[in-house]
């Protein structure tokens, strides 16, 4: 497809989500709220060490692993199901444009919007880190960059999975409910059932957590943080494979449904 058309389509999808006031407000609240709460809580607990490297770690973990992903799910599910919910998918199909192209435009649009919000929340986290540093040491530029990349990576992966899943279900409420329940309840519970053994490595949150810059050993094989503090050991290759697996499977399912369904 012509790159100019692809860009226009992506821009149109971006517009559709950006103009949904409810989604945007909630995504911003969910991305920014935890950052503010982290520093508020730490300030009340001990004003001398509210910020600094510890405040940075807590706030970036909130953005990247706990509540930021909910904002990513909000945006991803909206991008995946917005045309069908509004009943305009058929109007896009009757243009003659390939259905896969219509599906493909949703992914970068959702990512762009998701990252815009996450980067904004991350900048607030940095502001808090330095403003409330007190006597605490502050993160160096390398850790600041790693934190940003990790926040974008984590929320980006979840956002893409959400686009695919919402395109598969064609129902935003259903996709939203299932993914939030999975992220906040099912996934942490499964990660905590040690009797499940190594299959727990297939959990997306565990694989993403492997790349956290706040681990004591992120060179491979060591312990890592996931959203709820569970530590699982896996190699970098396994983590990459699991993350790619989730992305590929859900994008493929979403694309298949978009291509084959009656519009």
């Amino acid at each position, binding site marked *: 497809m*012509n790159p100019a058309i692809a860009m226009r389509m992506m821009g149109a999808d971006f*517009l559709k989500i950006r*103009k949904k006031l409810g989604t945007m407000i909630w995504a911003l609240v969910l991305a920014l709220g935890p950052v503010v709460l982290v520093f508020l809580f730490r300030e009340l607990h001990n004003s001398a060490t509210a910020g600094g490297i510890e405040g940075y770690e807590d706030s970036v973990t909130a953005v990247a692993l706990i509540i930021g992903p909910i904002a990513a799910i909000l945006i991803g599910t909206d991008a995946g199901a917005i045309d069908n919910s509004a009943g305009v998918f*058929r109007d896009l*199909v*009757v*243009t003659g444009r390939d259905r896969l192209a219509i599906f493909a435009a949703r992914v970068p649009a959702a990512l762009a919007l998701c990252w815009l919000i996450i980067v904004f929340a991350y900048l607030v986290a940095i502001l808090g880190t330095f403003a409330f540093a007190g006597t605490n040491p502050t993160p160096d530029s390398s850790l600041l960059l790693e934190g940003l990349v990790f926040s974008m990576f984590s929320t980006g992966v979840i956002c893409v999975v959400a686009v695919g899943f919402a395109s598969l279900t064609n129902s935003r409420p259903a996709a939203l409910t299932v993914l939030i329940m999975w992220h906040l309840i099912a996934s942490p519970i499964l990660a905590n059932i040690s009797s499940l053994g190594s299959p727990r490595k297939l959990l997306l949150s565990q694989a993403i957590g492997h790349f956290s810059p706040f681990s004591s050993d992120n060179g491979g094989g060591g312990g890592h943080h996931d959203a709820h503090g569970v530590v699982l050991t896996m190699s970098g290759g396994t983590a990459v494979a699991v993350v790619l697996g989730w992305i590929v499977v859900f994008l493929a399912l979403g694309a298949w449904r978009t291509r084959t369904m009656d*519009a």
Partner: protein
Amino acid sequence: MDSSSPQLAIETAGLTKRFGERTALDGIDLQVPRGCAFGFLGPNGAGKTTIIRTLLGLTPASAGTMRVLGHPVPAERAQALERVGAIVEEPRFHMHLTGRENLRVVAAVRGPETFARIEPALARVGLSERAENKVKSYSMGMRQRLGVARCLLADPLLLILDEPTNGLDPAGIQEFREMIRAMVEHEGRTVFISSHLLDEVEKTCDAAAIVDRGKIVTQGAIAELAEGGGARHELVVGVDDPERALGLLVASALVAEAHRADEGIRVVLAGELPSAAQLNAELVRAGVGVTRLEPVRHSLEQRFLAVTSRLDAELVPEELKA
């Protein structure tokens, strides 16, 4: 060998669509000429929307072939739909976007050249001043008009409109009808209108097909359809001596059929309508006073009810067998 006609906007052969056990379209052979308003007439549930959805590739056909603007569908679907604008069922939009933004969304999918058509399309349907309002604030009539504007983004050679006057008030219907006629007469576009409103099709369209239970019952020019497909000229004759006049008429070579009716004597001419003057002269020469000689105008509604009720009657034994 390619047997398609370049004169046809839509051409289907044996088009069949099944939903499980139910056959929604049953071997449809449809020919829609270019440059006319073509009505696709049928009662609710007859298969009107299904054929539109199949033509547009919204749902796959179970059997048969289709051509849209000369291109086989689905093989050349993208080329076929490049110059097609369609409203399927009611026009739907992103309610949280403005009218103009909704057009931008579709223009982005159609291609960069389409953006230049947004403002003219809005102006054409009279929505320029409301284009910055969110669609959720639009009336049904305004949404219909915005739907037409969305179709115009394709600079369409063929417009496919599914029940386009649903929800419009009489003034809106009249306005819509004028717009359709202008598109056909002044711009040479083909407009395919599905409707269950006989009056609407009769007033707007040049030709039509009547569909019922997934089958085309008849198709042709509106006047031909109303007459039953043949050159059948009927008169109502008012006379001072009906008994004698009926005898004369039955015996006349100019008359194919004559019988008494409430309004006078109903006569089916053997030839063309001008022979009515000769018939008048015959009666007068025979000393019968002629008080009325009026051609009978058949409405599409009569024809529609006749063919659909005939289908009902034909189906009864099958249903009983089942």
